[in-house]
């Protein structure tokens, strides 16, 4: 009899645990659906081809968001061009070359601490260093450099983890064939770590697209199309912030939000596809 009882009680615990876990995961999913659908319901009706292709008029009350989309893409692309090589190189160094030492621990601690600093602090630093000290003015370049600093820790951390997760047996196999460390890194480790590195880059892109404070301080909020990276521009997030906080137009705020979400989705999707094409397909 006793045996039966014990089994029953652990069964019940199992059921309860499963139920709770299920509830919490459903809860998360519901929140996501609520947010996205709320924005789409309120914003989608105001989106048209004109809205995408027209420049804003009357501070964004009328017209579209073309120049804002262009500025956003500029900043995203430029930040990733700066951050990806630096971040990946640093993570390769940390994961493969650096010997355990106090210096290495300081670098690791620094990277982790930097990842936790509020973005407004990066904005302030970018404002005083890039905008004024280096005299880059409010510009796409100042914004991109500031955001590069902001997303580097995330990219380094994720890439380092991805590189460390490459099985030791691959390294040994390659080195035992007489490959140098660099050859092993370039041809075996990095290709295998690419999906993880990509995750870091996508997280970085997500933060760049979503950032408003740091961009407002460094790239400005000019509504024109920037004709070079030395000109100011306004990203979607900044535009959204301005439209909402200054009460310019609720319709256009939501419409901008829809485009912001769509842009993030498109960037993630195309980055995934692109990397799959280049790295994964070649290895089949």
């Amino acid at each position, binding site marked *: 009899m006793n045996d039966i009882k014990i089994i029953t009680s652990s069964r019940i615990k199992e059921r309860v645990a499963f139920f709770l876990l299920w509830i919490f995961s459903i809860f998360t999913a519901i929140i996501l659906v609520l947010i996205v659908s709320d924005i789409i319901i309120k914003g989608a009706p105001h989106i048209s081809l004109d809205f995408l292709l027209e420049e804003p008029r009357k501070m964004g009350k009328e017209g579209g968001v073309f120049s804002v989309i262009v500025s956003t893409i500029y900043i995203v692309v430029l930040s990733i061009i700066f951050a990806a090589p630096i971040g990946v190189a640093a993570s390769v160094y940390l994961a493969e070359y650096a*010997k355990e030492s106090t210096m290495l621990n300081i670098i690791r601690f620094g990277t982790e601490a930097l990842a936790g600093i509020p973005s407004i602090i990066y904005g302030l630093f970018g404002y005083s260093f890039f905008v004024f000290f280096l005299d880059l003015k409010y510009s796409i370049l100042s914004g991109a450099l500031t955001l590069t600093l902001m997303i580097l820790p995330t990219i380094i951390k994720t890439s380092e983890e991805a590189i460390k997760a490459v*099985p030791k*047996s*691959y390294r*040994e*196999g*390659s*080195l*035992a*064939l*007489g*490959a*140098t460390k660099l*050859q092993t890194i370039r*041809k*075996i480790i990095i*290709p*295998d770590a690419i999906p993880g590195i990509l995750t870091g880059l996508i997280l970085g892109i997500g933060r760049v697209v979503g950032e408003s404070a740091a961009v407002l301080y460094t790239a400005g909020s000019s509504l024109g199309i920037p004709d070079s990276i030395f000109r100011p521009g306004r990203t979607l997030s900044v535009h959204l912030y301005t439209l909402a906080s200054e009460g310019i137009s609720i319709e256009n705020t939501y419409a901008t939000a829809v485009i912001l979400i769509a842009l993030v989705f498109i960037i993630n999707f195309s980055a995934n596809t692109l990397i799959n094409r280049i790295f994964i397909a070649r*290895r*089949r």
Partner: protein
Amino acid sequence: MGSVKIRVKDTNLYYGNHHALKNINMDIYDKSVTALIGPSGCGKSTFLRCLNRMNDLIPNVRIDGEIQIAGNDINKYDVILLRKKVGMVFQKPNPFPMSIYENIAYGPRIHGTKNRSKLDNIVEKSLREAALWDEVKDRLKSNAMGLSGGQQQRLCIARTIAVEPEILLMDEPTSALDPASTMKIEDLMENLKKQYTVIIVTHNMQQAGRISDYAAFFLNGEIIEYDKTEKIFYKPMDKRTEDYITGRFG
């Protein structure tokens, strides 16, 4: 008895304070199979990894004494050339996550072979030598991870052969394989020793008996006995060797 290919003189290895290999002296003969046997943790894999300097990768390892290959101290070799000359097959098959063709071509490529038809030849020749060609010739472009464990291990052998080594180190190459695959690899060894000096670590006594010409019995970091395999198996000099071979411990 062939000529001496590898000469190990008074070699000691320490992991930090742990004395893992004690005063190893051993002549390994060319174009033969030498089996290293002994219980787990006795130092046989560690010894194997001395021969291609894979222990260099581990921090806190100190080695003294001298190991010569074809009369030259291995520490005087460029480690890249040494590892090209002394290939290694690991316990767990470790093909790279790329196509079968790319796995084999990897070694020759890093050593400078670019020519496509040359690479094609190397790939075919290596796969034939590793008795894998007939099974994979129609799917060279497919991912090596899709092969069975036994095929993967033969692929790793082919990959090692592709850089034209003189010595093959095998660290329990069949311990992760089923009996049928094990047999294929053992058959393969018969052919391999015609061209290469093969040194194999194994836990499987029957395997050591079947395939090796010489055998060395390791215990607690020392070589207790090293001789022709039939002698080690049928007329061991040391009581401990006999106990191990007959399964009294280990």
